[in-house]
Protein backbone atom coordinates (compact mmCIF):
# COMPACT_ATOMS: atom_id res chain seq x y z
CA UNK A 1 0.00 0.00 0.00
CA UNK A 2 1.21 3.53 -0.73
CA UNK A 3 2.59 5.76 2.01
CA UNK A 4 0.02 7.89 3.80
CA UNK A 5 -0.37 11.39 2.40
CA UNK A 6 -1.41 12.63 5.82
CA UNK A 7 -0.73 11.10 9.20
CA UNK A 8 -1.58 12.23 12.71
CA UNK A 9 0.03 10.81 15.82
CA UNK A 10 -1.18 11.30 19.37
CA UNK A 11 -3.05 14.53 18.77
CA UNK A 12 -4.26 16.16 21.99
CA UNK A 13 -6.32 19.31 22.22
CA UNK A 14 -8.00 20.69 25.32
CA UNK A 15 -10.33 23.60 25.92
CA UNK A 16 -9.77 24.50 29.52
CA UNK A 17 -10.49 21.35 31.48
CA UNK A 18 -12.29 19.64 28.61
CA UNK A 19 -10.25 17.32 26.42
CA UNK A 20 -11.67 17.57 22.91
CA UNK A 21 -9.03 15.26 21.44
CA UNK A 22 -7.21 12.76 23.59
CA UNK A 23 -4.43 11.08 21.65
CA UNK A 24 -5.89 10.64 18.18
CA UNK A 25 -4.00 8.72 15.48
CA UNK A 26 -5.11 8.95 11.86
CA UNK A 27 -3.77 8.04 8.44
CA UNK A 28 -5.02 9.08 5.03
CA UNK A 29 -3.95 7.90 1.57
CA UNK A 30 -4.53 9.50 -1.78
CA UNK A 31 -7.50 8.22 -3.78
CA UNK A 32 -9.19 7.60 -0.47
CA UNK A 33 -12.26 8.99 1.20
CA UNK A 34 -11.91 8.74 4.96
CA UNK A 35 -15.03 9.43 6.96
CA UNK A 36 -14.76 10.59 10.55
CA UNK A 37 -18.02 10.00 12.35
CA UNK A 38 -19.11 10.46 15.92
CA UNK A 39 -21.69 12.01 18.17
CA UNK A 40 -21.85 15.72 18.92
CA UNK A 41 -18.90 16.55 21.12
CA UNK A 42 -16.91 13.53 20.00
CA UNK A 43 -14.18 15.85 18.72
CA UNK A 44 -14.89 15.83 14.97
CA UNK A 45 -14.81 19.58 14.53
CA UNK A 46 -11.69 19.93 16.63
CA UNK A 47 -9.97 17.23 14.58
CA UNK A 48 -10.90 19.03 11.39
CA UNK A 49 -9.71 22.28 12.94
CA UNK A 50 -6.32 20.74 13.70
CA UNK A 51 -5.90 19.26 10.22
CA UNK A 52 -6.99 22.46 8.51
CA UNK A 53 -4.62 24.60 10.54
CA UNK A 54 -7.45 26.46 12.18
CA UNK A 55 -6.58 25.13 15.64
CA UNK A 56 -3.19 24.28 17.09
CA UNK A 57 -2.97 20.92 18.88
CA UNK A 58 -1.51 20.88 22.41
CA UNK A 59 0.49 17.77 21.63
CA UNK A 60 1.03 15.28 18.85
CA UNK A 61 2.63 15.14 15.44
CA UNK A 62 1.30 15.81 11.96
CA UNK A 63 3.09 14.66 8.83
CA UNK A 64 2.23 15.43 5.23
CA UNK A 65 3.71 13.02 2.72
CA UNK A 66 5.96 11.67 5.46
CA UNK A 67 7.33 15.08 6.41
CA UNK A 68 6.56 16.56 9.83
CA UNK A 69 4.76 19.89 9.58
CA UNK A 70 3.36 22.56 11.89
CA UNK A 71 0.02 23.79 10.64
CA UNK A 72 0.01 27.26 12.14
CA UNK A 73 -2.87 28.64 10.10
CA UNK A 74 -5.23 27.65 7.28
CA UNK A 75 -2.89 29.47 4.90
CA UNK A 76 0.09 27.38 6.05
CA UNK A 77 -1.95 24.19 5.78
CA UNK A 78 -2.82 25.17 2.23
CA UNK A 79 0.84 25.60 1.42
CA UNK A 80 1.37 22.03 2.61
CA UNK A 81 -1.37 20.84 0.30
CA UNK A 82 -4.23 20.62 2.79
CA UNK A 83 -7.33 22.51 1.72
CA UNK A 84 -10.41 22.73 3.89
CA UNK A 85 -14.10 23.27 3.42
CA UNK A 86 -15.35 24.53 6.75
CA UNK A 87 -18.80 23.83 8.06
CA UNK A 88 -19.59 27.55 7.82
CA UNK A 89 -17.99 27.41 4.31
CA UNK A 90 -15.91 30.52 5.10
CA UNK A 91 -17.11 32.50 2.11
CA UNK A 92 -17.38 36.28 2.07
CA UNK A 93 -21.04 36.97 1.20
CA UNK A 94 -20.30 40.33 -0.39
CA UNK A 95 -17.75 38.91 -2.84
CA UNK A 96 -18.80 37.18 -6.04
CA UNK A 97 -18.03 33.58 -6.99
CA UNK A 98 -14.74 34.34 -8.74
CA UNK A 99 -13.59 36.62 -5.95
CA UNK A 100 -14.34 33.96 -3.34
CA UNK A 101 -12.74 31.15 -5.33
CA UNK A 102 -9.45 32.98 -5.56
CA UNK A 103 -9.59 34.81 -2.23
CA UNK A 104 -6.14 34.84 -0.68
CA UNK A 105 -4.63 33.29 -3.83
CA UNK A 106 -5.56 35.78 -6.54
CA UNK A 107 -3.98 35.69 -9.97
CA UNK A 108 -2.26 38.88 -10.99
CA UNK A 109 -0.76 40.53 -14.02
CA UNK A 110 1.86 42.93 -12.75
CA UNK A 111 0.41 44.50 -9.64
CA UNK A 112 -3.19 44.22 -10.81
CA UNK A 113 -5.69 41.42 -10.51
CA UNK A 114 -6.10 39.27 -13.57
CA UNK A 115 -9.88 39.04 -13.52
CA UNK A 116 -10.08 37.53 -16.98
CA UNK A 117 -7.88 34.52 -16.21
CA UNK A 118 -9.55 34.01 -12.84
CA UNK A 119 -12.99 34.04 -14.40
CA UNK A 120 -11.89 31.59 -17.08
CA UNK A 121 -10.47 29.17 -14.52
CA UNK A 122 -13.55 29.57 -12.37
CA UNK A 123 -15.83 28.43 -15.20
CA UNK A 124 -13.55 25.50 -15.97
CA UNK A 125 -13.38 24.36 -12.37
CA UNK A 126 -17.12 24.65 -11.81
CA UNK A 127 -17.64 22.78 -15.07
CA UNK A 128 -15.37 19.93 -13.96
CA UNK A 129 -17.39 19.57 -10.80
CA UNK A 130 -20.64 19.89 -12.76
CA UNK A 131 -21.64 22.79 -10.54
CA UNK A 132 -24.29 25.11 -11.89
CA UNK A 133 -24.36 28.76 -10.87
CA UNK A 134 -26.35 31.49 -12.64
CA UNK A 135 -23.23 33.60 -13.08
CA UNK A 136 -19.75 33.65 -11.57
CA UNK A 137 -20.24 37.36 -10.97
CA UNK A 138 -23.11 37.18 -8.48
CA UNK A 139 -22.33 37.76 -4.81
CA UNK A 140 -22.07 34.45 -3.00
CA UNK A 141 -24.64 35.70 -0.48
CA UNK A 142 -27.26 35.46 -3.24
CA UNK A 143 -26.64 31.74 -3.94
CA UNK A 144 -28.43 28.72 -2.49
CA UNK A 145 -26.84 26.68 0.29
CA UNK A 146 -25.88 23.89 -2.13
CA UNK A 147 -24.36 26.35 -4.61
CA UNK A 148 -22.41 28.03 -1.85
CA UNK A 149 -21.04 24.70 -0.72
CA UNK A 150 -20.04 23.80 -4.28
CA UNK A 151 -18.19 27.11 -4.50
CA UNK A 152 -16.39 26.34 -1.24
CA UNK A 153 -15.39 22.89 -2.51
CA UNK A 154 -14.25 24.33 -5.83
CA UNK A 155 -12.11 26.80 -3.93
CA UNK A 156 -10.52 23.97 -1.96
CA UNK A 157 -9.57 22.32 -5.25
CA UNK A 158 -7.88 25.37 -6.71
CA UNK A 159 -4.32 24.74 -5.60
CA UNK A 160 -4.56 21.03 -6.53
CA UNK A 161 -4.21 20.02 -2.88
CA UNK A 162 -3.25 16.51 -1.82
CA UNK A 163 -5.71 16.51 1.04
CA UNK A 164 -9.20 17.95 1.14
CA UNK A 165 -10.96 18.29 4.48
CA UNK A 166 -14.72 18.64 4.58
CA UNK A 167 -16.44 19.44 7.88
CA UNK A 168 -20.08 18.34 8.12
CA UNK A 169 -20.70 18.97 4.43
CA UNK A 170 -24.18 17.47 4.32
CA UNK A 171 -25.63 19.18 7.39
CA UNK A 172 -27.06 22.12 5.43
CA UNK A 173 -28.22 20.12 2.40
CA UNK A 174 -31.52 18.51 1.45
CA UNK A 175 -31.84 14.91 0.29
CA UNK A 176 -31.34 15.53 -3.42
CA UNK A 177 -28.46 17.93 -2.80
CA UNK A 178 -26.84 15.41 -0.50
CA UNK A 179 -26.95 12.81 -3.26
CA UNK A 180 -25.34 15.28 -5.62
CA UNK A 181 -22.72 16.02 -3.03
CA UNK A 182 -21.85 12.36 -2.57
CA UNK A 183 -21.30 12.09 -6.33
CA UNK A 184 -19.03 15.09 -6.06
CA UNK A 185 -17.05 13.33 -3.34
CA UNK A 186 -16.50 10.37 -5.65
CA UNK A 187 -15.25 12.76 -8.30
CA UNK A 188 -12.72 14.12 -5.81
CA UNK A 189 -11.48 10.59 -5.12
CA UNK A 190 -11.16 9.90 -8.84
CA UNK A 191 -9.07 13.05 -9.17
CA UNK A 192 -6.63 11.46 -6.73
CA UNK A 193 -7.17 13.63 -3.67
CA UNK A 194 -7.14 12.22 -0.19
CA UNK A 195 -10.43 13.28 1.36
CA UNK A 196 -11.27 13.57 5.04
CA UNK A 197 -14.94 14.12 5.65
CA UNK A 198 -16.76 14.42 8.96
CA UNK A 199 -20.41 13.76 9.46
CA UNK A 200 -22.91 12.61 12.00
CA UNK A 201 -24.86 10.85 9.24
CA UNK A 202 -23.80 7.20 9.30
CA UNK A 203 -25.82 6.35 6.20
CA UNK A 204 -24.26 8.97 3.96
CA UNK A 205 -20.74 8.14 5.04
CA UNK A 206 -21.28 4.43 4.80
CA UNK A 207 -22.30 4.92 1.19
CA UNK A 208 -19.36 6.97 0.03
CA UNK A 209 -16.34 6.39 2.28
CA UNK A 210 -13.56 3.85 1.84
CA UNK A 211 -12.69 3.84 5.48
CA UNK A 212 -14.58 5.02 8.53
CA UNK A 213 -13.02 6.20 11.75
CA UNK A 214 -15.29 6.56 14.73
CA UNK A 215 -14.51 9.22 17.31
CA UNK A 216 -15.93 9.00 20.77
CA UNK A 217 -15.12 11.41 23.60
CA UNK A 218 -11.99 12.56 21.85
CA UNK A 219 -10.57 9.10 21.18
CA UNK A 220 -10.61 6.80 18.18
CA UNK A 221 -13.24 4.24 19.10
CA UNK A 222 -12.92 2.01 16.06
CA UNK A 223 -11.70 2.00 12.49
CA UNK A 224 -13.69 0.22 9.81
CA UNK A 225 -13.45 -0.75 6.20
CA UNK A 226 -16.63 0.82 4.85
CA UNK A 227 -17.30 -2.11 2.52
CA UNK A 228 -17.24 -4.61 5.37
CA UNK A 229 -18.61 -2.71 8.36
CA UNK A 230 -22.24 -3.10 9.28
CA UNK A 231 -24.45 -0.28 10.38
CA UNK A 232 -24.79 -1.94 13.79
CA UNK A 233 -21.04 -2.08 14.31
CA UNK A 234 -20.69 1.61 13.44
CA UNK A 235 -23.57 2.62 15.65
CA UNK A 236 -22.14 0.63 18.52
CA UNK A 237 -18.79 2.37 18.13
CA UNK A 238 -20.41 5.80 17.97
CA UNK A 239 -22.48 5.27 21.08
CA UNK A 240 -19.87 3.21 22.91
CA UNK A 241 -22.25 0.36 23.54
CA UNK A 242 -21.35 -3.25 22.84
CA UNK A 243 -19.17 -3.94 19.85
CA UNK A 244 -15.41 -4.31 20.33
CA UNK A 245 -12.79 -1.99 18.89
CA UNK A 246 -11.31 -3.38 15.77
CA UNK A 247 -7.62 -4.09 16.11
CA UNK A 248 -8.01 -4.68 19.83
CA UNK A 249 -10.03 -7.83 19.35
CA UNK A 250 -7.04 -10.04 19.85
CA UNK A 251 -6.22 -8.20 23.06
CA UNK A 252 -9.50 -9.21 24.64
CA UNK A 253 -12.41 -7.21 23.25
CA UNK A 254 -14.16 -4.16 24.59
CA UNK A 255 -12.47 -1.71 26.85
Amino acid sequence: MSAPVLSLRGIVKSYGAARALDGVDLELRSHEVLAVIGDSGAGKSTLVGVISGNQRPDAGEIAVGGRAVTLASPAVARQHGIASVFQDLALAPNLDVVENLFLGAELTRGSFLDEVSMEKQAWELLGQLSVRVPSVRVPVGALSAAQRQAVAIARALLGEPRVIVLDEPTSALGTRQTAQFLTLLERLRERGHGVVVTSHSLVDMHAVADRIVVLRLGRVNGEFDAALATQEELLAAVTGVGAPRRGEERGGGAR
Partner: protein
Amino acid sequence: MTTLLSHARHRVRTAQLGLAGPAAALVLVWLVFQSLNPAFLSADNLVNLTQQSAVLGVLALGVVIVLHVGQLDLSVGALSGLAAAVTAVASVQWGWSQWIAVLAAIAVGVVAGLVYGLIHARLGVPAFVFTLAGLLLLMGLQLRVLGPTGSVNVPFETWLVDLSQRAFLAPAVSWAIVAVVVAAFAGTRWYDRARRVRLDLPVEPLGLLLGRVVLLAGILAGVVAYLGTNRGVGVPFAALVGLVALTDVALRRTRWGRAIRAVGGDADAARKAGVPVRRVLVSAFVLSSTMAALGGVLATGRLAAANQGTGDVDLTLTAIAAAVIGGTSLFGGRGSAWSALLGVLIVQSIATGVLLVGGDFSVRLIVTGLVFAGAIGLDALARRARSG
Protein backbone atom coordinates in the same frame (compact mmCIF):
# COMPACT_ATOMS: atom_id res chain seq x y z
CA MET B 1 -32.40 44.31 -23.12
CA THR B 2 -35.53 43.37 -21.17
CA THR B 3 -33.42 41.37 -18.73
CA LEU B 4 -31.17 44.38 -18.34
CA LEU B 5 -34.20 46.53 -17.58
CA SER B 6 -35.76 44.11 -15.12
CA HIS B 7 -32.37 43.75 -13.48
CA ALA B 8 -32.17 47.52 -13.11
CA ARG B 9 -35.71 47.64 -11.72
CA HIS B 10 -34.89 44.95 -9.18
CA ARG B 11 -31.84 46.89 -8.06
CA VAL B 12 -33.85 50.07 -7.63
CA ARG B 13 -36.59 48.29 -5.69
CA THR B 14 -34.12 46.69 -3.34
CA ALA B 15 -32.06 49.87 -2.98
CA GLN B 16 -28.92 48.26 -4.43
CA LEU B 17 -28.05 51.27 -6.50
CA GLY B 18 -24.29 51.39 -6.53
CA LEU B 19 -23.14 54.87 -7.48
CA ALA B 20 -26.26 55.68 -9.51
CA GLY B 21 -28.16 56.47 -6.30
CA PRO B 22 -25.82 59.13 -4.93
CA ALA B 23 -25.30 60.55 -8.44
CA ALA B 24 -29.04 60.96 -8.81
CA ALA B 25 -29.20 62.52 -5.34
CA LEU B 26 -26.51 65.03 -6.32
CA VAL B 27 -28.45 66.02 -9.45
CA LEU B 28 -31.61 66.36 -7.37
CA VAL B 29 -29.89 68.59 -4.80
CA TRP B 30 -28.54 70.76 -7.62
CA LEU B 31 -31.91 71.07 -9.32
CA VAL B 32 -33.61 72.03 -6.05
CA PHE B 33 -31.10 74.76 -5.18
CA GLN B 34 -30.92 75.99 -8.77
CA SER B 35 -34.68 76.45 -8.77
CA LEU B 36 -34.42 78.39 -5.49
CA ASN B 37 -31.48 80.51 -6.57
CA PRO B 38 -30.25 80.71 -10.19
CA ALA B 39 -26.74 81.63 -8.99
CA PHE B 40 -26.30 78.13 -7.56
CA LEU B 41 -25.11 76.43 -10.73
CA SER B 42 -23.02 79.41 -11.85
CA ALA B 43 -19.45 78.53 -12.73
CA ASP B 44 -18.24 80.82 -9.96
CA ASN B 45 -20.25 79.01 -7.31
CA LEU B 46 -19.27 75.59 -8.62
CA VAL B 47 -15.59 76.52 -8.54
CA ASN B 48 -16.06 77.58 -4.90
CA LEU B 49 -17.87 74.32 -4.26
CA THR B 50 -15.02 72.23 -5.66
CA GLN B 51 -12.45 74.27 -3.74
CA GLN B 52 -14.35 73.72 -0.50
CA SER B 53 -14.71 70.00 -1.15
CA ALA B 54 -11.02 69.07 -1.10
CA VAL B 55 -10.45 68.91 2.68
CA LEU B 56 -13.67 67.12 3.51
CA GLY B 57 -13.24 64.86 0.49
CA VAL B 58 -9.84 63.60 1.60
CA LEU B 59 -11.25 62.92 5.08
CA ALA B 60 -14.27 61.13 3.64
CA LEU B 61 -12.02 58.98 1.48
CA GLY B 62 -10.24 57.77 4.62
CA VAL B 63 -13.62 57.08 6.20
CA VAL B 64 -14.62 55.06 3.11
CA ILE B 65 -11.58 52.81 3.51
CA VAL B 66 -12.26 52.13 7.19
CA LEU B 67 -15.96 51.57 6.47
CA HIS B 68 -14.89 48.96 3.92
CA VAL B 69 -13.46 46.84 6.75
CA GLY B 70 -16.68 47.43 8.69
CA GLN B 71 -15.28 49.96 11.18
CA LEU B 72 -15.90 53.57 12.06
CA ASP B 73 -13.17 56.06 12.99
CA LEU B 74 -14.70 58.88 15.04
CA SER B 75 -11.48 60.82 15.37
CA VAL B 76 -10.66 61.73 11.75
CA GLY B 77 -11.63 65.35 12.38
CA ALA B 78 -9.58 65.64 15.55
CA LEU B 79 -6.62 64.04 13.81
CA SER B 80 -6.90 66.53 10.96
CA GLY B 81 -7.00 69.29 13.57
CA LEU B 82 -3.82 68.01 15.20
CA ALA B 83 -2.14 67.69 11.80
CA ALA B 84 -3.16 71.26 10.99
CA ALA B 85 -1.73 72.45 14.30
CA VAL B 86 1.54 70.61 13.70
CA THR B 87 1.83 72.01 10.17
CA ALA B 88 1.23 75.60 11.29
CA VAL B 89 3.18 75.59 14.54
CA ALA B 90 6.18 73.70 13.19
CA SER B 91 6.53 75.89 10.11
CA VAL B 92 5.74 79.25 11.74
CA GLN B 93 6.80 79.07 15.39
CA TRP B 94 9.49 76.39 15.30
CA GLY B 95 10.98 77.66 12.06
CA TRP B 96 10.88 74.30 10.27
CA SER B 97 10.76 74.26 6.52
CA GLN B 98 7.12 73.99 5.47
CA TRP B 99 7.83 70.74 3.63
CA ILE B 100 9.20 69.16 6.77
CA ALA B 101 6.29 70.49 8.82
CA VAL B 102 3.83 68.93 6.36
CA LEU B 103 5.69 65.61 6.42
CA ALA B 104 5.71 65.69 10.22
CA ALA B 105 1.94 66.27 10.25
CA ILE B 106 1.40 63.34 7.90
CA ALA B 107 3.71 61.20 10.03
CA VAL B 108 1.43 61.97 12.98
CA GLY B 109 -1.39 60.49 10.93
CA VAL B 110 0.60 57.36 10.08
CA VAL B 111 1.46 56.79 13.74
CA ALA B 112 -2.13 57.32 14.89
CA GLY B 113 -3.33 54.88 12.23
CA LEU B 114 -0.75 52.29 13.29
CA VAL B 115 -1.86 52.55 16.91
CA TYR B 116 -5.54 52.29 15.98
CA GLY B 117 -4.91 49.43 13.60
CA LEU B 118 -2.88 47.44 16.12
CA ILE B 119 -5.44 48.00 18.88
CA HIS B 120 -8.24 46.85 16.63
CA ALA B 121 -6.40 43.93 15.06
CA ARG B 122 -4.93 42.65 18.33
CA LEU B 123 -7.76 43.29 20.78
CA GLY B 124 -10.72 43.18 18.43
CA VAL B 125 -12.33 46.22 20.06
CA PRO B 126 -14.76 48.01 17.72
CA ALA B 127 -13.01 51.09 16.36
CA PHE B 128 -15.79 53.53 17.22
CA VAL B 129 -15.07 52.85 20.90
CA PHE B 130 -11.35 53.44 21.07
CA THR B 131 -11.31 56.17 18.42
CA LEU B 132 -13.60 58.02 20.83
CA ALA B 133 -10.74 57.86 23.33
CA GLY B 134 -8.40 58.85 20.51
CA LEU B 135 -10.63 61.82 19.77
CA LEU B 136 -10.15 63.24 23.28
CA LEU B 137 -6.43 62.52 23.24
CA LEU B 138 -5.90 64.10 19.84
CA MET B 139 -7.96 67.17 20.76
CA GLY B 140 -5.84 67.59 23.86
CA LEU B 141 -2.65 67.27 21.83
CA GLN B 142 -3.99 69.79 19.32
CA LEU B 143 -4.59 72.37 22.09
CA ARG B 144 -1.18 71.63 23.57
CA VAL B 145 0.60 72.10 20.23
CA LEU B 146 -1.29 75.31 19.45
CA GLY B 147 -0.25 76.75 22.80
CA PRO B 148 -1.95 79.48 24.87
CA THR B 149 -2.91 81.69 21.91
CA GLY B 150 -4.92 78.84 20.42
CA SER B 151 -4.40 80.06 16.88
CA VAL B 152 -1.45 80.28 14.51
CA ASN B 153 -1.52 82.13 11.19
CA VAL B 154 0.41 80.85 8.22
CA PRO B 155 1.85 83.52 5.87
CA PHE B 156 0.00 83.87 2.56
CA GLU B 157 3.16 83.76 0.48
CA THR B 158 3.99 80.16 1.44
CA TRP B 159 3.55 77.36 -1.10
CA LEU B 160 0.97 75.51 0.99
CA VAL B 161 -1.41 78.45 1.17
CA ASP B 162 -0.78 79.29 -2.47
CA LEU B 163 -1.49 75.70 -3.50
CA SER B 164 -4.64 75.47 -1.42
CA GLN B 165 -6.15 78.83 -2.32
CA ARG B 166 -4.86 80.16 -5.60
CA ALA B 167 -3.46 77.26 -7.63
CA PHE B 168 -5.60 76.20 -10.59
CA LEU B 169 -4.73 73.79 -13.35
CA ALA B 170 -3.85 75.52 -16.62
CA PRO B 171 -6.53 74.74 -19.24
CA ALA B 172 -4.03 72.83 -21.36
CA VAL B 173 -3.08 70.66 -18.38
CA SER B 174 -6.73 69.99 -17.53
CA TRP B 175 -7.51 68.93 -21.07
CA ALA B 176 -4.40 66.79 -21.29
CA ILE B 177 -5.43 64.97 -18.10
CA VAL B 178 -8.93 64.44 -19.47
CA ALA B 179 -7.51 63.01 -22.69
CA VAL B 180 -5.10 60.68 -20.88
CA VAL B 181 -7.74 59.45 -18.43
CA VAL B 182 -10.33 58.77 -21.13
CA ALA B 183 -7.76 57.03 -23.32
CA ALA B 184 -6.52 54.90 -20.42
CA PHE B 185 -10.07 53.99 -19.42
CA ALA B 186 -11.09 53.09 -22.97
CA GLY B 187 -7.81 51.26 -23.55
CA THR B 188 -7.99 49.01 -20.49
CA ARG B 189 -11.67 48.28 -21.05
CA TRP B 190 -11.03 47.42 -24.66
CA TYR B 191 -8.03 45.27 -23.84
CA ASP B 192 -9.95 43.36 -21.17
CA ARG B 193 -12.82 42.85 -23.57
CA ALA B 194 -10.52 41.52 -26.27
CA ARG B 195 -9.01 39.03 -23.82
CA ARG B 196 -12.45 37.91 -22.74
CA VAL B 197 -13.49 37.39 -26.35
CA ARG B 198 -10.36 35.32 -26.94
CA LEU B 199 -11.06 33.15 -23.91
CA ASP B 200 -14.71 32.75 -24.82
CA LEU B 201 -15.99 34.54 -21.72
CA PRO B 202 -19.19 36.59 -21.67
CA VAL B 203 -18.57 40.20 -22.67
CA GLU B 204 -20.55 43.41 -22.31
CA PRO B 205 -22.06 44.66 -25.56
CA LEU B 206 -19.75 46.94 -27.51
CA GLY B 207 -22.38 49.66 -27.36
CA LEU B 208 -22.33 49.60 -23.57
CA LEU B 209 -18.55 49.90 -23.50
CA LEU B 210 -18.72 52.80 -25.93
CA GLY B 211 -21.47 54.34 -23.83
CA ARG B 212 -19.32 54.19 -20.70
CA VAL B 213 -16.38 55.82 -22.48
CA VAL B 214 -18.59 58.57 -23.90
CA LEU B 215 -20.20 59.14 -20.50
CA LEU B 216 -16.83 59.46 -18.78
CA ALA B 217 -15.46 61.73 -21.50
CA GLY B 218 -18.63 63.82 -21.37
CA ILE B 219 -18.54 64.27 -17.60
CA LEU B 220 -14.83 65.15 -17.50
CA ALA B 221 -14.98 67.46 -20.52
CA GLY B 222 -18.14 69.12 -19.20
CA VAL B 223 -16.59 69.79 -15.81
CA VAL B 224 -13.33 71.13 -17.26
CA ALA B 225 -15.11 73.28 -19.86
CA TYR B 226 -17.67 74.72 -17.46
CA LEU B 227 -15.29 75.40 -14.57
CA GLY B 228 -12.89 76.76 -17.22
CA THR B 229 -15.32 79.63 -17.93
CA ASN B 230 -14.46 80.78 -14.42
CA ARG B 231 -11.16 80.09 -12.61
CA GLY B 232 -10.89 76.49 -13.74
CA VAL B 233 -10.12 73.30 -11.83
CA GLY B 234 -8.42 73.93 -8.51
CA VAL B 235 -5.30 71.94 -7.74
CA PRO B 236 -6.62 70.65 -4.38
CA PHE B 237 -9.82 69.42 -6.04
CA ALA B 238 -7.89 67.81 -8.89
CA ALA B 239 -5.68 66.15 -6.27
CA LEU B 240 -8.77 64.87 -4.46
CA VAL B 241 -10.19 63.39 -7.67
CA GLY B 242 -6.81 61.82 -8.44
CA LEU B 243 -6.58 60.35 -4.94
CA VAL B 244 -10.11 58.96 -5.22
CA ALA B 245 -9.33 57.41 -8.61
CA LEU B 246 -6.14 55.81 -7.25
CA THR B 247 -7.99 54.44 -4.23
CA ASP B 248 -10.72 53.11 -6.50
CA VAL B 249 -8.19 51.21 -8.61
CA ALA B 250 -6.49 49.89 -5.48
CA LEU B 251 -9.79 48.73 -3.99
CA ARG B 252 -11.10 47.08 -7.14
CA ARG B 253 -8.07 45.85 -9.03
CA THR B 254 -5.44 44.85 -6.47
CA ARG B 255 -5.09 41.96 -4.03
CA TRP B 256 -5.01 44.47 -1.20
CA GLY B 257 -8.39 45.89 -2.20
CA ARG B 258 -9.86 42.42 -2.52
CA ALA B 259 -8.58 41.59 0.96
CA ILE B 260 -10.07 44.81 2.36
CA ARG B 261 -13.51 43.96 0.99
CA ALA B 262 -13.27 40.34 2.12
CA VAL B 263 -12.35 41.36 5.67
CA GLY B 264 -15.27 43.79 5.68
CA GLY B 265 -17.61 41.07 4.44
CA ASP B 266 -16.55 38.29 6.81
CA ALA B 267 -13.23 38.61 8.61
CA ASP B 268 -13.22 35.01 9.85
CA ALA B 269 -13.90 33.67 6.36
CA ALA B 270 -11.11 35.86 5.00
CA ARG B 271 -8.70 34.50 7.61
CA LYS B 272 -9.61 30.93 6.78
CA ALA B 273 -9.08 31.68 3.09
CA GLY B 274 -5.55 32.80 3.89
CA VAL B 275 -5.98 36.57 3.93
CA PRO B 276 -3.58 38.23 6.41
CA VAL B 277 -6.48 39.86 8.24
CA ARG B 278 -4.49 41.75 10.88
CA ARG B 279 -2.16 43.33 8.37
CA VAL B 280 -5.09 44.29 6.19
CA LEU B 281 -6.88 45.92 9.13
CA VAL B 282 -3.77 47.87 10.13
CA SER B 283 -3.31 49.06 6.55
CA ALA B 284 -6.88 50.34 6.45
CA PHE B 285 -6.45 52.37 9.63
CA VAL B 286 -3.05 53.71 8.56
CA LEU B 287 -4.41 54.85 5.21
CA SER B 288 -7.47 56.42 6.74
CA SER B 289 -5.51 58.31 9.39
CA THR B 290 -2.93 59.40 6.83
CA MET B 291 -5.69 60.85 4.71
CA ALA B 292 -7.17 62.59 7.75
CA ALA B 293 -3.78 64.17 8.44
CA LEU B 294 -3.47 65.16 4.78
CA GLY B 295 -6.90 66.78 5.09
CA GLY B 296 -5.61 68.76 8.06
CA VAL B 297 -2.61 69.95 6.05
CA LEU B 298 -4.88 71.09 3.23
CA ALA B 299 -7.15 72.82 5.75
CA THR B 300 -4.17 74.76 7.09
CA GLY B 301 -3.42 75.98 3.59
CA ARG B 302 -7.02 76.80 2.86
CA LEU B 303 -7.50 78.86 6.05
CA ALA B 304 -3.90 80.11 6.08
CA ALA B 305 -4.12 79.26 9.76
CA ALA B 306 -4.64 76.54 12.29
CA ASN B 307 -6.73 77.09 15.40
CA GLN B 308 -8.68 75.29 18.06
CA GLY B 309 -11.69 75.07 15.79
CA THR B 310 -9.82 73.28 13.00
CA GLY B 311 -11.10 69.74 12.79
CA ASP B 312 -14.14 70.22 15.00
CA VAL B 313 -16.36 67.30 15.87
CA ASP B 314 -18.85 68.29 13.17
CA LEU B 315 -16.09 67.81 10.57
CA THR B 316 -15.78 64.15 11.60
CA LEU B 317 -19.51 63.68 11.49
CA THR B 318 -19.83 65.37 8.10
CA ALA B 319 -17.02 63.26 6.68
CA ILE B 320 -18.74 60.06 7.85
CA ALA B 321 -22.08 61.36 6.58
CA ALA B 322 -20.51 62.14 3.20
CA ALA B 323 -19.05 58.63 2.86
CA VAL B 324 -22.40 57.01 3.64
CA ILE B 325 -24.46 59.46 1.58
CA GLY B 326 -22.08 58.67 -1.28
CA GLY B 327 -23.12 55.03 -1.05
CA THR B 328 -20.53 53.22 1.09
CA SER B 329 -22.20 50.81 3.47
CA LEU B 330 -21.97 51.17 7.24
CA PHE B 331 -22.04 47.38 7.48
CA GLY B 332 -18.69 46.80 5.80
CA GLY B 333 -17.45 45.27 2.59
CA ARG B 334 -19.50 47.35 0.19
CA GLY B 335 -18.90 50.74 -1.31
CA SER B 336 -16.67 52.68 -3.61
CA ALA B 337 -13.92 55.24 -3.37
CA TRP B 338 -16.06 57.42 -5.60
CA SER B 339 -18.69 57.63 -2.90
CA ALA B 340 -16.29 59.93 -1.02
CA LEU B 341 -16.33 62.39 -3.94
CA LEU B 342 -20.06 62.13 -4.63
CA GLY B 343 -20.93 62.31 -0.94
CA VAL B 344 -18.77 65.36 -0.34
CA LEU B 345 -20.21 67.12 -3.36
CA ILE B 346 -23.72 66.45 -2.03
CA VAL B 347 -22.87 67.63 1.49
CA GLN B 348 -21.03 70.72 0.25
CA SER B 349 -23.79 71.51 -2.23
CA ILE B 350 -26.25 71.47 0.64
CA ALA B 351 -23.91 73.72 2.67
CA THR B 352 -23.43 76.36 -0.02
CA GLY B 353 -26.99 76.01 -1.30
CA VAL B 354 -28.48 76.66 2.13
CA LEU B 355 -26.26 79.74 2.46
CA LEU B 356 -27.30 81.01 -0.97
CA VAL B 357 -30.99 80.76 -0.17
CA GLY B 358 -30.43 82.61 3.11
CA GLY B 359 -30.54 79.68 5.53
CA ASP B 360 -28.14 79.56 8.47
CA PHE B 361 -25.97 76.85 10.03
CA SER B 362 -28.95 75.30 11.79
CA VAL B 363 -30.74 74.70 8.48
CA ARG B 364 -27.59 73.21 7.00
CA LEU B 365 -27.20 70.76 9.89
CA ILE B 366 -30.86 69.75 9.76
CA VAL B 367 -30.87 69.15 5.99
CA THR B 368 -27.58 67.24 6.08
CA GLY B 369 -28.86 65.17 9.00
CA LEU B 370 -32.03 64.28 7.13
CA VAL B 371 -30.12 63.27 4.00
CA PHE B 372 -27.72 61.21 6.13
CA ALA B 373 -30.67 59.48 7.79
CA GLY B 374 -32.14 58.73 4.37
CA ALA B 375 -28.84 57.25 3.20
CA ILE B 376 -28.63 55.05 6.31
CA GLY B 377 -32.18 53.86 5.67
CA LEU B 378 -31.36 52.93 2.08
CA ASP B 379 -28.18 51.19 3.23
CA ALA B 380 -30.15 49.11 5.73
CA LEU B 381 -32.81 48.28 3.13
CA ALA B 382 -30.20 47.16 0.61
CA ARG B 383 -28.58 45.00 3.25
CA ARG B 384 -31.88 43.35 4.10
CA ALA B 385 -32.61 42.70 0.43
CA ARG B 386 -29.26 40.93 0.03
CA SER B 387 -29.60 38.72 3.06
CA GLY B 388 -33.31 38.05 2.56
